């Protein structure tokens, strides 16, 4: 268990670091996939089987493909990835470091539970039931949101009015 957690942490944070540091956007996209898969691993570790599979299916399978297609449609070799002013480096880097320090020290002080309740064997069925009892309204709202996103994105991506 601790070993699995260690490997997943390496994959997740390493992937995230890769996303930030890679100079090629395509490499960033693949590091992003690594981070997604690491997070899926945590879900399996936590007994959230269904969410873990969905994380792979949606993030690694669909969102990453969308990213890659967009990168390939818009990429120019000459585009610099970095090249921010030193002030911005200092400011954002300092703020990020401060945030990380605040979060981590705060987390350390709290006595967190260490015992994970045994994973429910009917994880997927439980989600199905909850989806239609307490969460039925948000569930329907999701479909409207997806419809809006689909129509909006299709309108934007359509070929009209653009020479490329």
């Amino acid at each position: 268990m601790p070993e699995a957690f260690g490997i997943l942490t390496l994959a997740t944070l390493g992937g995230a670091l890769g996303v930030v540091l890679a100079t090629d956007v395509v490499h960033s996209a693949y590091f992003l996939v690594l981070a997604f898969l690491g997070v899926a691993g945590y879900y399996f570790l936590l007994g959230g089987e269904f969410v873990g599979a969905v994380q792979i299916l949606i993030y690694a399978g669909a969102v990453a493909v969308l990213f890659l297609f967009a990168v390939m449609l818009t990429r120019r070799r000459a585009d610099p990835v970095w090249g921010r002013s030193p002030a911005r480096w200092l400011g954002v880097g300092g703020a990020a470091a401060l945030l990380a320090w605040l979060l981590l020290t705060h987390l350390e002080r709290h006595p967190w539970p260490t015992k994970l309740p045994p994973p429910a064997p009917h994880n997927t069925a439980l989600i199905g039931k909850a989806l239609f009892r307490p969460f039925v309204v948000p569930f329907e709202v999701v479909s409207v949101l997806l419809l809006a996103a689909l129509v909006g994105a299709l309108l934007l991506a359509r070929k009209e009015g653009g020479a490329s």
Partner: protein
Amino acid sequence: MPSLGDFLAVGAGLFVLGLFGALMKRTAVAVLMGIELMLNAANLNLVAFAAFSGRISGQIFALFVIALAAAEVAVGLAILLSLFRSRATVRMDDIDLLKG
């Protein structure tokens, strides 16, 4: 066995890295990637809390967040594509449509 705090710490790390990427990257696609990392960090926390409290609602929330993130990426990248077609760039500094 890792405690809830360990999962939250990873979530915090992921969030900070995502934030840093979103603010520092110059290509807009990479900025969106940073935002995805932050959403993943939030999701990790949700699922971790759900697991340690033995309740399912955190996982349902994570599903909703995943759906939301997918919709957000779809629209965000579509905006980028149409910007790229009119301006031939995806560099954040060059995209200033609102500056008359």
